[in-house]
């Protein structure tokens, strides 16, 4: 009897321990599955800056086609494998060309995307300033000359006349009033 009981005690202990262990494994398994689960938001955050070659200019995160859904699943798998956003972008660029990236990598031919605007704005800016300065110099010359012989009296007047009264013509409101009165 006693021995039988002891055995059952042992049995109980074993069962209990077994149960505990299984529970532990189970929770560990669930916990691991939870950390491995990739949310849609995480997938979309990566997909947002990718464009599949077929669906023109529709970002991957919102594209409703089947092919794009497959791409998103691929991203999900890779995220679950622990890959980073940059690594996944790299993967797609290697597979399908740089054309899939919303933000083209700064290498090779695509450098013109950064170089041209900078150069363009710089050259444009210099030309523009030179042009305006040139105009102004001529303008000042014309304005300071008494009455340049090259200008007809009328056009000289149109250059000269307004400068003085405008500077002295009080504030904006009174000018608006003057003008409105004149229009009446």
């Amino acid at each position, binding site marked *: 009897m006693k021995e039988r009981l002891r055995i059952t005690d042992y049995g109980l202990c074993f069962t209990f321990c077994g149960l505990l262990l299984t529970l532990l494994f189970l929770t560990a398994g669930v916990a691991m599955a939870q950390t491995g689960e990739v949310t849609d938001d995480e997938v979309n955050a990566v997909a947002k800056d990718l*464009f599949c070659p077929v669906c023109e200019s529709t970002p991957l995160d919102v594209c409703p086609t089947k092919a794009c859904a497959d791409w998103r699943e691929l991203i999900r798998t890779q995220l679950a494998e622990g890959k980073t956003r940059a690594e996944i972008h790299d993967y797609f660029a290697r597979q399908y060309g740089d054309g899939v990236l919303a933000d083209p990598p700064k290498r090779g*031919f695509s450098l013109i995307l950064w170089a041209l605007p900078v150069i363009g704005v710089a050259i444009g800016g210099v030309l523009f300033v030179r042009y305006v300065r040139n105009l102004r110099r001529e303008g000042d010359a014309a304005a300071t000359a008494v009455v340049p012989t090259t200008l007809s009296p009328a056009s000289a007047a149109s250059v000269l006349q307004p*400068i003085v009264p405008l500077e002295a013509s009080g504030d904006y409101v009174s000018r608006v009033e003057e003008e409105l009165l004149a229009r009446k």
Partner: protein
Amino acid sequence: MIPDLGTIALGFAFGTAVYAALAAWYGHRTDQPRWVESARNATIITLPLVALACFLLIISLLRSDFSIEYVWRVSSRGMPDYLKVTALWGGQAGSLLFWNFLLAVFTAAAMMRNWRRQRELMAYAIMVASFTQIFFLGLSLFIENPFNRLAFVSPDGNGLNPLLRHPGMIIHPPMLYLGFVGFTIPYAFGMAALMSGKLDDTWIRLTRRWTLVAWLFLSLGLILGGRWAYDVLGWGGYWAWDPVENASLMPWLAGTAFLHSVMIQEKRDMFKMWNMFLIVLTFCLVISGTFIVRSGVISSVHSFAQSAIGPLFFGFIAIMFVFSVYWLSKRHEALKSENHLNSFLSREAAFLYNNFLILAILAVVFLFTYYPIFSELITGEKGFVGPPVYEQATGPLFGALVLLMGVAPMTMWYRTSAQRIGMGVRWPALAALIFIGVLIVLGIRDWRALLGLWIVSFAAILTLLEFWKGTRGRMKAKGEPPWTAFATLMGRNRRRYGGYWIHMGVIVMAFGIISMELFQEQTQIRLTVGDTLSLGRYEMQFLGASRFPGPDDLLITQATVDVYDNGRYVGQFYPRTELYTRTNQPMTIPDARSTISEDFYMLMINWEPTSSNQATFRVYLNPLVNWVWAGGIIFVIGTLIAAWPDRKEELVTVSRPHQTVLAGGD
């Protein structure tokens, strides 16, 4: 029978257009006004002929005459009648015909309206407008004839592209086309001025309203396009820097620069060459835009070779460009200005800065849009530029432009002292700074948002002050009550105050755009029936979904959800997916709880009725998105104020010599 009639009508229209160009040329060369007059009549006659062709195509669409290839391609028996009519611009051949029709309308209207006023310009204007018409009619007649027959008669057609079945699509493309086509008129008169050597600002005054009207339609087209994208495309936004969108943005930008810089020529008689260049640029961008919208050339250079239409368009743009540049260089000397810029701080200088910024934006958009073509041609690999790059590049430029927009109205013609501007801007700058301080206290930390919102609120205060100063001026001078003073101010000086309305519209839109760009939130999650998701203040409960057939080949899957705002029930909403079974094309149609401060925008991405009662939802919180549309409405009202016919001014337009205006001016 009907298709034959259509082709014949097109043929006659082509003939009258060719005749108009030749008669105008001959009449002008031999100095026989009756030939020019005959040319004018020919351009007017072109209109009913093209209208007849359009009418016949619409009849064929309504009758579902599938012996015609175009009808078969873009319509189906089950489509409602209004969609059959709008299928006129649902495909390439039809939209080219529609383009032709609108061009004929504009040309005929311009001929009838301006005929008595500027005879010297007319012969040339007819030649240029007719040449454009000949090109497009030639395309419609010989290359993309919408009346081409099929070898067989199909029992049913393909149906209209699902994307184009939205009510927004009924008006969006015609607006864009009206805008595109409308710019042909100022271009034709600009070229007429160049060719005739009558280089004063007559052509600008003559076409000012045409330009404004074209610009109005183009703006409307852009705004409606954005709204359509928001309502139908289901990605939570309204602008994606898509090549097709850029194709209409670019002429709009060039047209905007032109509208501003012509004012320098009118007031100061300067920059004649520049204005000519801008209208040439606008026209070339319009033509290439028309081409890009239909051809899909940007996505691959290969589609360029697939149709004969590509090289022809390219050739036409090249001809027009070379022709324009030839005349520009020929009149180079005559276009030189007698007047000069007096100061970096003046109204005319401000317009120049505006032009510089707008053209910089245009150049960037151009480079990025055409980059795939350059890349494929040079490296053989298809390139792509996505929205983030556009935003980085154009964002600062747009910011500078809005800043200028606020400050520029304070400048005066000839010169303004820095002191005066400083006095004018310091209180508004401080007020805007206080506003930003409040935002910081409220928890906004993103420096881009703070800088952007400072610029926008600063510009808003300055623009509102312009209205206030003008109104107060009238109240004081005339003793009028505020509303009368305000209304008379608008009525008396439509162009200036219409312009400020437009600025105000841009500012309101800018508030919305900055918020959308920087503070949009989103989440995507799979819900079982009864589950809820939450985003911001909102909660959404999924009540169930059902699938049922819609009109034609449509299969609708619709979810029912309850939405709570801060725990308060605000209503039931129905985001849905639509599947056009014939083409197997899916669409995700959003539903939104829309308020002045934000939209709670819901999409159902996926529903699996067989496996489980689960659906995947994607929801967005779109802050201030309604400000974008409200700004658009203000913008359009402003353009209408500025463009509204003004009898008095029409009469003085031609006789008025160049005059000096003391105060700010328009």
